[in-house]
């Protein structure tokens, strides 16, 4: 599943079929190479483990309790600083700029990132090193001269 297919989509409860929020950006844990949830505004998020299903039209959660404040330092940074991966500056761990991130492909049930899609190449999820205020850092591709 592609992150771009979800951004802007409604988050809907299965209990009442009620729209409670919309997906703003994914929240990614680079160390685990996983999508761990979605930011919905500048204060709140929906963790992936509260998500029942992700369909073509909506992200389904059981109840409005799925929305919560960020708790970990990582979650807080992603929500409060509005971190993102798509369209960001990408640097290799050798300090060279690469093409921007076009999309992230991930497994909707586990959040495991299957691919980081740059404008000119695909990286595997474990090649993602970090996401910060300045750049997305990835392992230096071996297919280009240093």
């Amino acid at each position: 599943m592609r992150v771009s297919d979800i951004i802007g989509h409604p988050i809907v409860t299965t209990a009442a079929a009620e729209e409670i929020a919309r997906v703003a950006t994914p929240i990614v844990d680079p160390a685990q190479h996983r999508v761990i949830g979605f930011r919905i505004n500048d204060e709140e998020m929906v963790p992936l483990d509260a998500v029942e299903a992700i369909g073509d039209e909506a992200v389904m959660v059981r109840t409005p309790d799925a929305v919560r404040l960020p708790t970990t330092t990582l979650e807080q940074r992603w929500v409060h600083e509005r971190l993102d991966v798509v369209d960001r500056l990408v640097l290799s761990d050798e300090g060279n700029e690469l093409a921007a991130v076009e999309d992230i492909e991930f497994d909707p049930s586990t959040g495991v990132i299957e691919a980081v899609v740059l404008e000119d190449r695909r990286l595997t999820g474990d090649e993602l090193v970090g996401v910060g205020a300045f750049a997305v850092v990835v392992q230096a591709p071996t297919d280009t001269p240093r």
Partner: protein
Amino acid sequence: MSVLVLASDLIGRPVVTLGGDDIGEVKDVVLGLDQAVLLGFTLRGRRTLSGPLDRVLPWSNVRAVGRDAVMIDHEAALSDEPLTDSGAGEPVLRLDVVSDAGNHLGHLRDVVIATGRPPELVGFDIATELSEGDSTGRMLLPVNEMVAVSERALVVPEAARSFAQRDLTGFGAGFTQYRDQFQAVDHARK
């Protein structure tokens, strides 16, 4: 093949953690009378109106030098301790470079770095006295990672002089030759 740059070319380049945060940019290069020669960099903030940072980046903590950023593992790579040479004491204003045959070559203006992960110090940019044979006042001399240090000067092998160049373009090929030859010499000595 890595790209060669002068350390001063890195001034203004962002210093970025593997976590993707820019914690500053290179403000200045600190050279010293020390085996490592390049002690590190002072830093300044990256936001408008942000001034110099108190913390410095020791050269040994640089993970990689690339075209677009100086990479460090983590913010902890920065140090609160000022960058000083092992000789300690008075700061050296002028770093003289002499050969092990006793010839004074000039003073150190900058150093040449081979970019990459990890980066490597590969040469000296020496301001020479003008002479009949040399009107450029510049000598780029290949050196190995660790340089000999006397009480007053950096000491380079006399043999390195035959690989001296006047610009970075010529320096690259010369350096490879120099290193091959010197590794062979080092090996023969053992």
